[in-house]
């Protein structure tokens, strides 16, 4: 008798049937991976920071104590203090709202405008599809970050405008994915089956196409949330958001960059951005798998 655990092989398919993969329900216990649990915890914490900053950070984010400038991270100041003696942790927490909520605004614009464009283009087809298609081509042709910079420079340098600009640059991606999903679902047999069962176009669109298309758009929204946080941080870094004493995360990095001897001024906000975006992306990955 020999037992062999066969390494390295390729096809997981056994059933020689026309059933698509996943047709047989896997009897699996739902266990949440540690990384996912941590990511969700981070997201929850960040939302709490954004909504109730004073609960989490008691020190003044705007007025510092000059005598305490450039203190390295320690028990009193978790992330140290800056050149004016302000607590960096407190500044990060108070900057959460504009750094993260503006990303939500951006994604919201992308989902709504892009989603509707893609839905209409995919469902109506014909010249509507052509017009939307060219519009999306234009939006795709301009690099997202450059587009955001141009829009924010036309609207004025404020964080909310940066959010709108980021949203505009995300419209194309959402429109494309939504259109592709709608086209895919529209061709599905069950959609034709619904028409045969007497369903009107509107019924088919709302009851069959949308519920089947929304999942990938949802996963994309969460992914795009991470991207938007990065883009908005980039805009703030270049000074296109609210001016100091606002404490958008990107702005914190930009001002910290001038003090190479106090590396925590860059590393603390940078680490927060990385952890938050990592967590958001982890959640998105999970949504895409399901």
């Amino acid at each position, binding site marked *: *008798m*020999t*037992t*062999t*655990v*066969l*390494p*390295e*092989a*390729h*096809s*997981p398919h*056994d*059933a*020689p*049937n*026309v*059933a*698509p993969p*996943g*047709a*047989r*329900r896997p009897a699996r216990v739902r266990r949440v991976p540690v990384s996912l649990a941590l990511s969700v915890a981070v997201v929850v914490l960040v939302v709490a920071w954004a909504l109730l900053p004073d609960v989490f950070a008691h020190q003044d984010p705007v007025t510092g104590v000059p005598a305490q400038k450039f203190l390295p991270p320690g028990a009193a100041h978790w992330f140290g203090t800056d050149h004016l003696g302000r607590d960096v942790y407190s500044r990060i927490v108070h900057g959460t709202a504009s750094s993260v909520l503006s990303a939500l605004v951006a994604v919201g614009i992308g989902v709504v405008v892009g989603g509707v464009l893609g839905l209409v283009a995919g469902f109506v087809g014909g010249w509507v599809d052509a017009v939307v298609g060219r519009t999306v081509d234009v939006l795709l042709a301009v690099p997202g970050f450059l587009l955001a910079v141009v829009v924010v420079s036309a609207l004025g340098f404020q964080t909310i405008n940066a959010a709108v600009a980021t949203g505009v640059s995300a419209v194309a991606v959402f429109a494309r994915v939504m259109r592709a999903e709608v086209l895919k679902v529209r061709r*599905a*047999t*069950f*959609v*034709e*089956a*619904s028409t*045969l*069962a*007497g*369903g*009107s176009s509107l*019924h088919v669109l709302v009851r*069959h196409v949308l*519920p*089947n298309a929304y999942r990938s758009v949802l996963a994309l929204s969460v992914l795009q949330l991470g991207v938007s946080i990065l883009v908005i941080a980039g805009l703030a870094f270049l000074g296109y958001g609210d001016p100091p004493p606002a404490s958008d995360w990107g702005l914190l990095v930009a001002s910290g960059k001038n003090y190479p001897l106090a590396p925590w001024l860059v590393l603390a906000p940078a680490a927060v951005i990385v952890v938050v975006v990592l967590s958001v992306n982890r959640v998105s990955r999970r949504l895409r798998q399901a």
Partner: protein
Amino acid sequence: MSETEDLSADVPATPELLRVDGLTVGYGREPVVHDVGLTVSRGETVALIGESGSGKSTVARAVLRLLPRGAWAQGSVTLAGHDALGLSEAQFRRLRGRVVGFVPQDPASSLNPVRTIGAQADEAARLLDLPDRAARRARVLEVLARVGLDDPERVHASYPHQLSGGMLQRVLIALAVLPGPDLLVADEPTSALDVTVQQRILDLLAELQDSLGLGILLITHDLALAAERADRLAVLRDGRVQESGPSRQVLLEPASEYARTLGADVPSLHPDRFDALRARRSLAPGAAPQIELRGVDRTFRTGDTDVVAASGVSFAVARGTTHALVGESGSGKTTAVRILLGLETPDAGEVLVGGEALGRRSRAQVRALRRHLQLVYQNPFTSLDPTWSVERLVREPLDRFRVGTKAERAEAVARALDDVGLSRDLLGRRPVALSGGQRQRVAIARALVLRPDVIVLDEPTTALDVTVQAGIVRVLLELQARHGLTYLFVSHDLGLVRQVADTVSVLERGRVVEHGHVADVFTDPQHPYTRALLAAVPRAAQHPTTAQHPVPAQHPTLEPVP
């Protein structure tokens, strides 16, 4: 076993090529194959039969050591004298191709789409000791010709998408026999092909076997085909061998309950099986046709070429009877059905429903028509919205046509589920949580719930196992007897058509080449195409006592490939 030894050269003198003993295979903790044993000798075909999930492909892959990552195998597999499970991957690799070749199920996905046939064949030719590339090329061309490909040079230079399914399967067989293996493992080698092509591919395998002395392990779900082509059978269910023995014995005198059921459910073995059930219908003699197609034409343009999907297609179905549309892929069956349902507009011709010509129908009229004309799709895995519950799926037609009150609709849904033999406990489930057979019953309940006059059944059992198929067919015939339904039954399975249909139209390339009563057409086919289709039904099924696999002379016997 030393690494340097040439594993391919010393095939032992015993005729036994493959011996599997106590083979247990599992994914993760769960074993899916239990204690399987079988042998294959030189020149012998052994068929491993089972329905989906029986573990037959897992056995094949364990023998070939192609199991997916994380799978384990226990027991012993002796391949031409080598302990196949005990060898290292590097050692076993030397047996691949040279000792054991593999012919897979789906020819379309089994060749790399971005490389030419020649480049992939060269990999197989490298296993032979040929001096250079030119010699390998010559051998490849020789073998491509050997498997009956007319223009080997062109095939050699082609990409997979440029060849038909039948040609690709020939290429795959050529690639498998090219390095001169002793054993071929063929996993459903013809399931993806049309019946007449299927026939020719199996003939080719048999002929190669005879001239090369190959042993073949044939994996299939088709008992009739296995009985015709194999010397011995092993019937597998839930990963266990239920019965094994000489083909005729297993087919004609099955010892196990499961083999008996399996045999009873193969349509071509029992043409009269449902006659009693069908006799319960009360048919009015000379009733007017319920549906009729008259001279329907339809041509599709793809790129620069016209594809004639329907040309002068006419047929009529009397109320309460079943009419079958028979043909292979591309014969125009589906187009005819879609025209009838108003999903496709004919270029010419008429569609009559209930004696009324429905030439220029308005949208509302088409919608009203659909209430009385329902469709059951071929694949229940794609025809049910995965996000909906069974209850909502079955109720959708009632909701859309605003039939009855809320309570009446609920009642109708429950009744429809009873009709198709589904428990009401399933109402809250989504399609993923149902088996293939249950899904198809849901699809039938959905078609039935409006109490239509006509139900179009587009290959309703093709995606299902034969035992599940038998249950579905029974339900359909019971419903017909109870509700006086008219069926248009599209199928490529002549055995099944013979069991369920009253009349039949045979389609070939968009034309009706023969039509009439099922009994007449089957016993005395007039058109050569009908005869070819009938000939492709496994012979063991038609004349069980004379079952022998034939060696046709259509390919002159060439030099055996060493």
